């Protein structure tokens, strides 16, 4: 699944194109694909949100919505998906990550924002339902990674906020308005640590992801 720009071919759905290349025993082919259109989509993540053994898709759009695409058994292409949507409470969303935050086996959603420093959490509830969106004060984030950094069986969030200017042609320019560090939120945001080394690497390479 690749998120691209707005429809560029005749017949494509409106919105930014999420292109699915279907796998097979022969690998991937240029022609075995399906395009979904999501208006103002900016990021996507996959995870098994309903614990049915297959990864589903969550697409974040700039208007503060999460668009859900549920995996479905199908031997026919193209696939008709069941879709869903989650409204987020604030704006300025930047990135989305899927990871099991509460240990129930279903992937939950973590959303990073720009400006307010809020981090949104949305817990998945089987079957195909979602808990309330909770907001946590953190840091602006262009990407969030989740992992148990200290071995306490609780997930930590690692946030980076990287922004880079682009010339008219799209080539990368200078980094600007970026935080000076990678921020780590420990144990449900009880402790805030700062780790500067990784961010230096991020700036040097122009990365915005872990």
């Amino acid at each position, binding site marked *: 699944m690749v*998120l691209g*720009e707005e429809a*560029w071919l005749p017949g494509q759905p409106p919105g930014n*194109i999420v292109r699915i290349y279907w796998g097979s025993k022969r690998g991937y082919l240029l022609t075995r694909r399906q395009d979904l259109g999501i208006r103002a989509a900016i990021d996507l993540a996959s995870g098994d949100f309903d614990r049915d053994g297959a990864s589903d898709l969550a697409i974040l759009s700039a208007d503060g919505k999460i668009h859900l695409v549920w995996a479905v058994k199908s031997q026919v292409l193209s696939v008709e998906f069941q879709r869903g949507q989650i409204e987020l409470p604030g704006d300025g969303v930047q990135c989305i990550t899927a990871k099991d935050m509460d240990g129930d086996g279903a992937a939950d959603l973590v959303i990073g924002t720009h400006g307010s420093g809020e981090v949104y959490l949305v817990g998945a509830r089987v079957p195909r339902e979602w808990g309330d969106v909770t907001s946590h004060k953190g840091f602006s984030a262009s990407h969030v990674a989740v992992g148990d950094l200290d071995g306490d069986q609780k997930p930590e969030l690692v946030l980076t906020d990287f922004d880079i200017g682009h*010339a*008219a042609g799209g080539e*990368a320019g200078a980094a600007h308005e970026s935080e000076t560090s990678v921020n780590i939120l420990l144990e449900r945001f009880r402790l805030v640590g700062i780790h500067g080394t990784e961010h230096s690497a991020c700036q040097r390479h122009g990365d915005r992801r872990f």
Partner: protein
Amino acid sequence: MKFAAVRQSSLSRVLISLLLSLLAISGTSSPAAEITWVEDTFDDFADGRLDASGQNLYVSRDGTLRNIHRFDLNQDGHIDLVFNSTHDSFAFIPASVTGVTREGRIQQSELLVEGSLQVAVGDLNRDGHYDLVFLPNESGLQHPRRFVSIAWGGTDGWPAHRVAGVLPIRGAKAITLADLNHDG
């Protein structure tokens, strides 16, 4: 074109000219005769014109012929390719794999993937080895249509001959892996 390392005097050139003139006047031809022009100074060459508008050769001030395109830059016997860039920075940074040995040394190797925004890791073909799917970055130097690269993993890592990039995407922003149709 044949070049000899013999310097030719103006006198010898005059003699050759006279000989050619006499042959022409007498109507005698000598088809087997080979005429060798010897020019080895800048002034010698200055009255001539190089083939192909001088695209490949030029004459230096010391009278030597030089290639404009020096293909084998490092003199290793292989032709090198040179491309100019309009920018003084790298737009495409090669992907690399970094690991730490048991002795604590960092090992790094480059992959045949030029410029990427994101990589997704998964065992796509269920062979027990991680495969790497790279989302191309935008350079501004090319059309926004670029290609997703897949580095198929194996016991020998991700060698160049198992990197494929045939899946197009335009204006790539993000990538992820999922089995959306439950076919395994």
